């Protein structure tokens, strides 16, 4: 199974579950959660089902292409189902079957792993999913985002698709993954990992980044003041990425770190609040949707 088969199959599977198959966001994000298709859509009472690949940037995780498992740019496959149906874990297991992973032949486990992201004021409870000891998915029931309690609790599934591919192809290095029959992951990304590692750790202009951070922050605030949520949120994402770069450059001391994270969070919280208000003013247009494709709740022990 080639790398691209994994996300193609997941797209198909989740489309079959009534998900909107979206595309990655066009800004740098640290994780699929930051994409407004998750970060904002989970707020409020409206139902939502979405699936998308998200290229995710973690500047500090770069290893100059030398570590077979760690990259500063990788892919997440993100699924959000809101509200979380009672059989969501069964659905997830079916998605693995669609990838050719037969649960009876493996050891699939749900091991406690609670998630939080302080820079967007979010937390949830859930698991890391183990496949024969390897973490392949992060599963979270959101409880709060942007400091706002979930009105309807969604389930977020984040597949580590490189991990799954390495498992399926039995290779020890990400770079050896076959993306297609004759093109490897390394062909596509190795040079970028090397260059970006140099940039993230050594070359990034910290004066410029500090300035950008402040400019992005100010712009987000200014746009929020005018009552526009989505453009403001873009600037939150930009400021967050600027912070991540500064952090990997070692330009932010441990003391200052909390302060910067707090500044990003304050903006994220304002966006969350404004978004909730905006959707209410719009009359929650998604209400009543996602009925057709939604899987019936057929929880264990309730079918009698």
């Amino acid at each position, binding site marked *: 199974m080639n790398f691209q088969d994994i996300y193609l199959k997941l797209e198909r599977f989740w489309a079959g579950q009534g998900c909107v198959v979206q595309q990655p966001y066009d800004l740098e994000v640290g994780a699929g959660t930051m994409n407004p298709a998750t970060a904002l859509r989970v707020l409020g009472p409206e139902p939502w089902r979405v699936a998308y690949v998200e290229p995710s940037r973690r500047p500090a995780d770069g290893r100059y292409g030398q*570590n*077979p*498992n760690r990259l500063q740019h990788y892919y997440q496959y993100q699924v959000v189902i809101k*509200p*979380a149906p*009672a059989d969501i*874990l069964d659905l997830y297991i079916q998605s693995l079957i669609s990838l050719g992973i037969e*649960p*009876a*032949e*493996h*050891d*699939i*486990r*749900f*091991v*406690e792993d*609670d998630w939080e992201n302080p820079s967007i004021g979010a937390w*949830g*409870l859930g*698991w890391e999913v183990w*496949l*024969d*000891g*390897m973490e392949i998915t992060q599963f979270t*029931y959101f*409880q709060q985002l942007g400091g706002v*309690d979930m009105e309807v*609790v969604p389930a977020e599934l984040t597949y580590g698709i490189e991990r799954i591919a390495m*498992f399926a192809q*039995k290779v*020890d290095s990400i770079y050896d993954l076959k993306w297609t029959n004759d093109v490897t992951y390394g062909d596509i990304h190795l040079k970028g990992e090397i260059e970006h590692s140099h940039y993230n750790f050594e070359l990034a202009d910290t004066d410029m980044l500090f300035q950008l951070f402040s400019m992005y922050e100010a712009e987000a605030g200014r746009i929020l003041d005018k009552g526009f949520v989505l453009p403001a949120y873009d600037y939150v994402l930009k400021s967050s990425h600027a912070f991540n770069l500064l952090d990997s450059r070692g330009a932010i*001391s*441990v*003391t200052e770190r909390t302060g910067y994270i707090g500044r990003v969070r304050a903006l994220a919280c304002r966006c969350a609040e404004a978004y909730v208000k905006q959707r209410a003013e719009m009359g929650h247009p998604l209400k009543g949707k996602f009925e057709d494709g939604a899987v019936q709740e057929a*929880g*264990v*022990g*309730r*079918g*009698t």
Partner: protein
Amino acid sequence: MKLKNVVLEIGTEEIPSRFLPPMIEELRGFAEEALESARLGFKDIQVYATPRRLVLMIGTLDECQKECVELLKGPPMSNAYDSAGNPTRAALGFAKSKNVSVDALKTMEVGEVCYVAAEVREESKATLEVLPGLLRGLISRLIFPKNMYWKDPRIRFARPIRWILALADEHVIPFRYGDVESGRMTSGHRFMGQKSIEIKSAGEFMERLYDNNVILDQEKRRQKLEAGISMLKQNFEGALKVELDPELVEENLYLVEFPIPFIGSFDERFLEIPREVLVTSMKKNQKYFAVYDKDRESRLANYFIGVSNNRPSNINTIREGNERVLQARLEDAAFFWDEDRKRPLASRVEHLKNVIYQESLGSVYDKVLQTQRLAGWLCSELGRENLVELVERAALLSKADLLTSMVFEFPELQGVMGREYALHDGEDPRVALALYEQYLPRSAADTPPTDDVGALLGLAERVHVIVSCHKAGLEPTGSQDPYALRRAARCINEIVWARNLDLDLLKVVETSALANLVEQELTEKIIFFLRQRLLIQLKEKGFEHELTLLALSVAWPRPLQTLRLLEALDAVKDEPWLQDLATSAVRVKNILQKAEETSDVFNPALAVLEAENALNGEMERLKPSVSDALEAGKWQELMVLLAELSPIVTDFFDNVMVMDPDERVRNNRLALLKRCNALFERVGDMTVLKSQGKRGDE
């Protein structure tokens, strides 16, 4: 007729394993409480837990509630009836409030007074009627360290509840909890059992689960896990040894419903990495058991034992998958091990300036320097001048491993990595050892440092932490002790005792307080805190309260001397002479308190009785030896001296009437007692031995 079996099963998505063992006890306690207050007799209660279910089983339960007749007190008779014998408004009101007719009121006597009383009969309901509310109430009482909601924000649990089975023999106990209706359906093992299983009668519940590959009873799972591991070892003809880390066994037990241990291996080259790193990586990341070489006790073998929750047609699939994961993990560890060693520890110290120790207390670097200064002072204070260089070097390097990648990845390896990297850097082996031993003892059962370098460093750091945290207002309050200062105080005493270091807590705290610019008032508070901790710790060792107070009154602020004196006292505590001496001490004190101010000049010429001169003579004779014993901390000798003194004092009181009518004789005797008291006070306030019941010092 009794109900033979009652089962409540709360079916959930996978609950974190660490939550389950305490929850078993909690559910058991709640269930006992609830049944008792519902007046339902039962024979036994079992509670079981797996990641996907919490189960309460009640064996042999009464079919209905016990009858309850209660006599409730009303107004006094005198208020309840008027002179004509008619009930007053008070009586009528009382009867109405208890729902009985006024004619049915009874009487009861409390003390001398007679009251009217209402006999209230609590209805005896059938158990099947009581159970729905009772079981529902039980579930709502279960609160985990972390809880979530999934639908109704008022319904919270560790993870979503997906089904509830509630059966009393063959009857469903019907109730609703959140969005779940109770019933007779359960679910087997997630991958090896049926999804929907109908249970006809509570009695067959456990067996049906077992048929569906769920071993409900945690003890049975433990047996299966341990037996499985023994089998694996046999395959290696006893060449391997597995340490069944109890924490890891417990964790694995509650991670699976059906444990299937398997053995895997890893590349031998990883054995070059320090053992603790491998063990920690295996345990923490993958929940694997480490495997040791049978012949070379502490040498790791390149194997591991994992526990699967599933039995596939081919276990090799699972083994290979796990081996690949471990390979990557150890690759990481090897990378950190190599990278970290490229830079000496000493070169990292400078960077501790960027690590915050505590918001108001500056950086870890500042803390290191202050610890170093105090540790150096301790060396000379405790007569270990020859260690100054080693201790100061160890202090300087003490927190440098915080900045290594390995400790960043595995914080629990702090100290271990300090030792390993220091050895690699060619630091003195005693310095390296101290980097590890500074954290000993890590728990009550742990061993103390084996060398003074680590002991002195550990003492200095803990004193500094106690003083600086008090300064920052972070002292423990009630059950809160976020900076573990109580534990630090405990460790100080443990180290002092184990290493025979005659530390003066007063002096060391004052020295540290001076360096930390702590004011006098707070310094006294810290010293009081340490004294309290020592008192509590000594009592935990089993010493009597009064004896401990006595020892503290003499040997405080030296924990080493306090313990030794206490041991000496404890050895003689039942001797009659000690009891006599304490009685005498009380008498002396009482007499002196009542008497007017007297001189302490004893004039032998005014002594009328032999016992007076005998006491004076004996005191004069013993005084220098007592002083010597006190100063040198020769506590056994002191006991011998006091044993000699005791009968003389007793004899004095038996034969001498202190308050003689002749003022001169009387004052002379009081002077003698005053001298006596002065001696007593030097060997501690023995009157505390006679003041049982007064625990004002706690």
